[in-house]
Every structure is written in structure tokens, then in C-alpha cells.
């Protein structure tokens, strides 16, 4: 998927994450997390896997994590990506890249 405009998903509530995607070259990830010491590695892996699954190759991604579980992180990244390419209102590829 191609990032056309900047978009966000999520909140800064506890157990959530705020994900921002913007057009960029290659994948640039900026990650901060309240649980970075114990889960930073896993959070980064989850985000990169999700982008890869959505076939996003070029994006600047900023994630402010407040202790979200993996399922939440995936959902927020997917939503931000769809919003950034105008697919969030309709044509959401349920059952395809969303797993």
C-alpha cells in the first residue's frame, strides 16, 4: 500500500498506542513506549511485520506506545495505514491483509 497523506490512529490512553504514518522513503520507525525496556524489541517487530503484511514499503511511522498488547498495536497500525491511503471509509480489505 502506498502512503498518500499523513494519518493517525489510536490514543495516548493506558494500554493503547498512538500511531502516525506519513509519506517517506523506505521504512522509518520512531518508537517510544512506557514498556520499552521489556517489550521494545517485540513492539518494533510487531509494527514492522504489520507494515510488511500491508505491503507498505515507504513510510515514516511514529508510534507512542502506552503498554498496548500486540493485537492493539496491529489494529492501530492497520487503521493508520488505511486512513493514509483513503481506504478506511470503504473498501477495507477484510479477510485479506487484515488478520
Amino acid at each position, binding site marked *: 500500500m502506498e502512503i498518500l497523506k499523513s494519518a493517525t490512529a489510536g490514543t495516548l490512553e*493506558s*494500554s493503547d498506542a498512538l500511531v502516525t504514518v506519513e509519506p517517506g522513503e523506505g521504512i522509518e520507525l520512531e*518508537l517510544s513506549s*512506557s*514498556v*520499552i*525496556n*521489556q*517489550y*521494545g*524489541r*517485540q513492539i*518494533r517487530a510487531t509494527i514492522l511485520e504489520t507494515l510488511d503484511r500491508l505491503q507498505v514499503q515507504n513510510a515514516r511511522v511514529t508510534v507512542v506506545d*502506552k*503498554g*498496548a*498488547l*500486540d493485537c492493539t498495536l496491529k489494529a492501530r497500525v492497520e487503521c493508520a495505514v488505511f486512513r493514509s491511503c483513503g481506504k478506511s471509509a470503504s473498501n477495507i480489505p477484510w479477510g485479506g491483509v487484515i488478520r
Partner: protein
Amino acid sequence: MKNAVGRDIPDFLLENGKEVYQGKNYMDGKYMQKVGPRTRRYETPQESKLVDTIADALRQCGAKDGMTFSFHHHLRDGDFVVNMVMKAAIDELGLKDLTIAASSLGSAHDPIADYIEQGKVIGIQTSGIRGRMGQVVSEGKLKTPAIIRSHGGRPRAIEAGEVHIDIAFVGASTSDCVGNSRGIGGKSNCGALGYAMTDAKYADHVVVITDCLVDFPNMPASIEAIDVDAVVVVDSIGNPKKIASAAARISQNPRELMMAEDVVKVIASTPYFKDGFSFQTGAGGPSLAANLFLEKYIDERGIKMGWAIGGITRPMVELLKKGKVGKVIDVQDFDLDAVNSINQTPNHFEMSASQYANPANKGAFVNKLDFVVLAALEIDTGFNVNVLTGSDGVLRGAPGGHPDTAAGSKVCVIVTPLVRGRMATVCEHVVTVTTPGDCVDVLVTDYGIAVNPLRPDLIECLDKAGIPHVTIESLKEKAYSIVGRPDDVQFEDKVVAILEARDGTILDVVRQIKPFTL
């Protein structure tokens, strides 16, 4: 050297007879030499001990570089006293190389972090360390390792001379002109003054700081004039709203209520739950809620609680007033109901920290305790509990009376949710051991109950009562299945804090945090 909870204690800390933690009751039967303070004689009758400023009091007590000042934490997050005294000592008198020996420190003491960074404060001895102070100590900016002690370990260390107090500062809600002090009757009331009592008896000098001067004699006095050198009247010793909060509402959270009821079911299944039993609970959500269910079970069995100790809050005061508990003995008050009850409600008494929890005296209250209900930041599969360091390794908590009550009580119940956000509360290894697993008996979580295999008698009780329980390993796996398996927190080599077991042996160390990079 590895200690009894598997923690590696660096050899350089094991000097002058210091030992690593060997297990519960290791010091039993040994003799200790108590120290006496060097105090000034005031033979000429004094009309008053009032001095104008804290700086004057410091000068009168011969304050100089390298001294140890002690404080108590009954004013909790509202406390102004520590900051006022350190400001006078450092900014007005120009003192340096000072050590703060406090019963606890909190976020009210953020300004002390500056004095640590400037190298003016070089030692911290406390139970609690939080906020900016916890941060700078964790960053290795304190010149000597902080020493963290439990509420019972502190009076033991003071009596044994392991910490020598040059000047003790007592923040008193009321005092008369010669220093008879109480925690009630003023405008900034805190109730009990139990943590300051040992300080007043063992410090070379004692300064009372109050914002409400009352007529002589201020009786019954928690701190007696016979131990006091000087009295300073200030505008305010603290912010009353943060000293004693309005009573914490009993949780409406169904998860917490479920855990609280499970705690009481466990308690009621043991042979110790009989007329005259004794009890202590913390002030956390599920622990407080346990009081409610306890009342129900007390009524059902037609029994009464003999006595309760604490850390007292409203639910216990209410049980006392209803005649469902015989006596309440109190080292600190957490809310206004408790503050307004101590020494007022019949059978609500005050005690010192030593009387409460000191393992080296001849019988602290915790040693007669049947049940204690406590919380945990983390608990590992060895039942070791951490209530000091966060998941990032930074100092942000306090052992308080946790290790003392756990060791002394017949049944120690830890109640905690299995996970908090993405943090697994039940884990493989806690970051820091603050209460050793050989003192912890039962774990109650929202996903199940686990009993320490060291207590087959309790396993039998639960089985007889039909209370299901699982292994702590299965709870840990359940937690990891939800949040994922955490990576180990990374530290530098430098020791920034020493965690003393209540008997004075070394339970664990906290090392300098390593900036995290992905």
C-alpha cells in the same frame, strides 16, 4: 556471593561483618549491642525551646558537613519539612556531604534531586524512593549507594548504630514550647507519629518543627520534650490535602472485588480465622475491599477480630466503632477518618515503628499477626515480591512494612491482578527482591490462586474448603500468553542502591539503569 533468594551480592558490600540474606529468622537468638546517643544536658530550667528559624535550630545543634539528618514520612506527599530543612542546611548554612535518613521519601521531595546532582547530599537511607529522586539515584548520581530498609529494619539499624542520626527532625502537627509533640490538634494533622519515635530516642539532637504551637503540656505526647533540643514554628509543615486524603472509596471494580472476596475466602479457610484473630491490610484497591468481605465472614461465623495494626484507613476505624475489632494499634494514618480516630476512639492506640515491626527487639506486633494482605508490583515463581523498582529498573516504590508483616504473620496473602497493561505481574524473575519468597504464603490474582509449596498446611485448608488453586508457574505462563515474554531489563554494573533485608543482611542490590536503545 549468591544469597538465599539467588541474588548475586557483590563482595565489596560484604565488609564489617555484613552478610547476604540467609533466609527467614536467621538472626534469631543472636545478641546485639544497642548504641546510645550523645545528648546535651539542659540543667538550667528552660522556659521555652523556641528558636526563630530552622537555620538557628541547625546552628544550635552544631550542624556541620557530613552529618546525617533524619525525617519521618507521616506528612506523606504533603510534606514540606524535608525540603525546608535541607534548603536551610545547604543554601543558608552552606553545608555539604549530608546524608538523609528518612522513614520514607516521596514525590514531595523532588527538589532533593538537585542537591544530589550538586553533590551536597551524598547518602540516602529510606524505605520509599520515588519521583525525581528515584530517577537521579537510578542514574548513578548519588555518591554512595542508597540504603533501602523496611519499616522494621530501620529502627533495628538505628538501635544497632548502623545508622547514626546527628539531628532528627520531627514534623509535628502540634507542639508546645518545649517540644511535647502530637500528630493531632493542629491544622496539618497526620495522626500517628510512630516512625519518628525511635529517631527521637536515638538521635544526638532532636528538632521539632510545627505549624501549630499549643499550650504546655501537649499531652499525651507522641514525641516527648525530654528528647527535644529545639522547637521551630513555621507557617506550614505540609499540605493537609496531601497529608491525609479523604477516605479512599472502596473499589467498585468487579475484578478487584472478586479478588478481594477470594482473599477473604482463603483467610476464612484457615484455622487462624477464629475469635480474636489479628489482621493487617494495605491501602490498595483489592486490599481495602477485603475489609468489606471480612466483615461479612466475621458476622457469619459470629466471631470478632481481636486486633488490627497498620497503616490504618477508614474501613478499619469503622469496624472498631462497630465493635467488630477489639483494638487498633497504629504506626501511621492514611486518611482523615484514621487521623481523627487515633487516641480519640476508645481502643485506637499509637505505636512506634520498632514496636510495630522491628525484627531485633523482643516481640514486635507483626510477630503476633495472623493475617496480612499485601499488594505487589511483581511476584515471581519463587514467590519473591518486588515493590521497589519499576519495569524499567528505576527506583519508584517502597518496601514499607511489606517484608516485616510478611515474615511475622502466619498467613501472608499477596493480591494483585495477573497483568497491568502490558506488564506481567506474575513473572519468572522479579527485577528486585524486596520481600523474600520464604515469607509469602498465598497469591490471589484475577486468573487464579496459588499457594507457596512451603505451606502444605494451607494447601490442605484450601482443598478442604473447595477453593480451587493452581501452580504459580501456570499463572506466570498465563500472564506471558497475554502480554508476551518480557526481555530482561538491562543494567550497568554500578550499584546504586542496597536492599537490606529486615534483619540487616543484604537481600538484593539495584544497579544503575542503562539507557535503552533498540
